[in-house]
């Protein structure tokens, strides 16, 4: 039987997946700094996980080094957006021209992405030929190497003390603008000829090679593209926090991105949004457990780290029981966002009829779908 499903109605998709989220975001951002900070973090998490998915979900490699590219982006952004006086104080060894250079955030983001991509290229050429586990460990090594450089180049990075006083330029509208553009670009990439080649390589590299796909250039290019967006996300992160230092861009950060990506579903860009939703808001809900709280007159002791523990257990359960992540490889979200039909549906009569048809109560079937 071919019943009309709600999700097939352009209009429903417009309302549920586009308008409602926009309203929620706008309302949340106006609820004060606490909420707007969470929403910003969420959006950056989406960008991070989606860009990681390009490599881990669509190319068949498994990188864990995203924090390294974030760090590059964040520091380059500091170079480009701080005032000359700030730079003279914290980064005395910068060349004069760079000290004097100061630009707005949006153009700076492009340079952040490019810098991260260049680092990815330098590390990728030797490392991407490694197979499986060795590649993963090498990307962890990249984090260690970048951290060591940051902590030890005092004249450029202010060493382990980090850089303070970054301008808080990354407001929610800026972040969401960058996020939407980035997602659109990534979505076009995976839906292009190039992206199909990538998926072919993931599914069967030998067969892909025999079809004339150049594995090496594919692997390196997607690694660089992924790093580009990680660099952009890192820069945004820096401008939200206004303080950056090497210790932030270490294993914990990298694993968190991996975790978001897995929970949402590595093989889906939309999965990043779902994963980020989970990983941003659930820990916030669990936060009272961390500091200890009183319920019915009983004071629970503070359980430092409990939310990380719960999320780790959740990750193990996901990997055991739903290995493809919550969203699998579905792209419903992004498809709705980036297809014309979603928006033109507003002006089509037939769409309203379709929606009514789908909303009409159906004869109740037994609930078991199996």
């Amino acid at each position, binding site marked *: 039987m071919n019943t009309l499903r709600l999700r097939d109605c352009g209009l429903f998709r417009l309302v549920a997946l586009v308008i409602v989220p926009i309203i929620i975001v706008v309302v949340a951002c106006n609820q004060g700094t606490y909420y707007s900070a969470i929403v910003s973090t969420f959006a950056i998490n989406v960008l991070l996980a989606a860009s990681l998915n390009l490599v881990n979900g669509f190319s068949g490699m498994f990188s864990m080094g995203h924090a390294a590219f974030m760090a590059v982006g964040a520091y380059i952004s500091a170079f480009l957006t701080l005032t000359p006086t700030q730079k003279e104080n914290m980064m005395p060894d910068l060349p004069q021209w760079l000290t004097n250079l100061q630009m707005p955030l949006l153009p700076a983001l492009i340079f952040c992405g490019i810098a991260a991509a260049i680092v990815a290229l330098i590390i990728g050429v030797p490392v991407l030929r490694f197979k499986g586990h060795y590649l993963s460990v090498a990307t962890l090594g*990249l984090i260690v190497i970048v951290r060591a450089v940051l902590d030890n180049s005092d004249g450029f990075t202010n060493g382990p003390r980090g850089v303070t006083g970054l301008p808080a330029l990354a407001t929610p509208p800026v972040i969401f603008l960058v996020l939407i553009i980035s997602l659109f670009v990534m979505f076009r990439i995976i839906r292009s000829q190039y992206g199909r080649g990538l998926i072919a390589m993931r599914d069967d590299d030998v067969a892909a090679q025999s079809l004339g796909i150049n594995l090496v250039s594919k692997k390196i290019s997607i690694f660089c593209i992924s790093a580009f967006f990680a660099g952009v996300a890192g820069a945004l992160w820096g401008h939200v926090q206004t303080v950056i230092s090497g210790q932030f861009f270490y294993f914990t950060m990298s694993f968190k991105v991996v975790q978001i990506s897995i929970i949402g579903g590595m093989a889906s860009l939309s999965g990043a949004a779902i994963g980020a939703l989970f990983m941003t808001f659930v820990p916030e809900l669990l936060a009272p457990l961390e500091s200890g709280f009183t319920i019915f007159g009983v004071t629970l002791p503070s359980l*430092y780290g409990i939310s990380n523990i719960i999320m780790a257990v959740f*990750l193990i359960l996901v990997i055991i029981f739903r290995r493809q992540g919550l969203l699998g490889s579905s792209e419903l979200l992004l498809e709705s966002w980036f297809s014309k039909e979603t928006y033109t549906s507003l002006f089509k009569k037939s769409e309203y009829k379709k929606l009514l048809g789908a909303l009409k109560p159906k004869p109740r079937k037994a609930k078991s779908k199996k």
Partner: protein
Amino acid sequence: MSAEYIISQLINGLRLGSVYAIVAVGYSIVYGILRLINFAHGDIMTIGVYIMLLFMTSTGMPLWSVIVVSVLVSVIVGVLIERFAYRPLRSAGEEATLISSLAVSTLLQNLLQMIFSPQKKAFYLPDFFTQQHQFGIVKLSTMNILTFAAVIIMVIALTLVVQKTKIGTAMRACSENLDASRLMGIKPNQVIVFAFAVGSGLAALAGLMLAGEYKTIDPLMGFVPGLKAFCAAVVGGIGSLYGAVAGGLVIGVAEMLFAGLMPTSVTAYRDAFVFVVLIVVLLFWPNGIFGRSEGRRS
């Protein structure tokens, strides 16, 4: 730079290398059978240390019995991790277990932070261990001697187990061909549990050596040394007992010489140095320096 300084640096390298070697052996035997990088392995080391601290400070138990308890607890934790986080993923592919081990590592680190607080704690061994002994120009602490002895005993004992016992032969069979081993009636799960138990017990001992040297411990202390030990196992040729030991010693000595002989502006890169060594080694020897190419893997 005096010869004595170089020698003492060399000894420090061998000591650190011994710790890596002991941890690397655990990585290696598990990886040999399951093709799993157990990221939580380094954290088992931390658990062992905290158990020791707990029993040393809260009971008057003699040190040797504290060590036994800590090894036992670590073995139990290691086996439980295998049972609940890795066994359900036996047929799921390398990536899934890798992720699971990452989650376990996060879990253990946070659990330790929750129970013992994230702050550093002092960890003192009795004076007996820090006593220095002079052998010509070579100066060794009791701890140094015990560490070297532990590595030698471990190598001999594991060689005997692997070569002479039934479970050891089964282990070698499993790491070569899991399906063919099942056709012999070998239960892979038994062998895998055994491998985890051995690896975890050794990790606890390595933790003791590491903590004795640093004199402070914290819940995250095991992760990076664990990662370096994995590098050591890979450098030596993963899956091989002697490769893991050799790799551990090579990495340990290289790291200490790097830290001790290079100008101070560079020495802060010693953690990064280990990974650079790993990447360089893998570029020239994809199977590690002492490893042979893996033949079959079906």
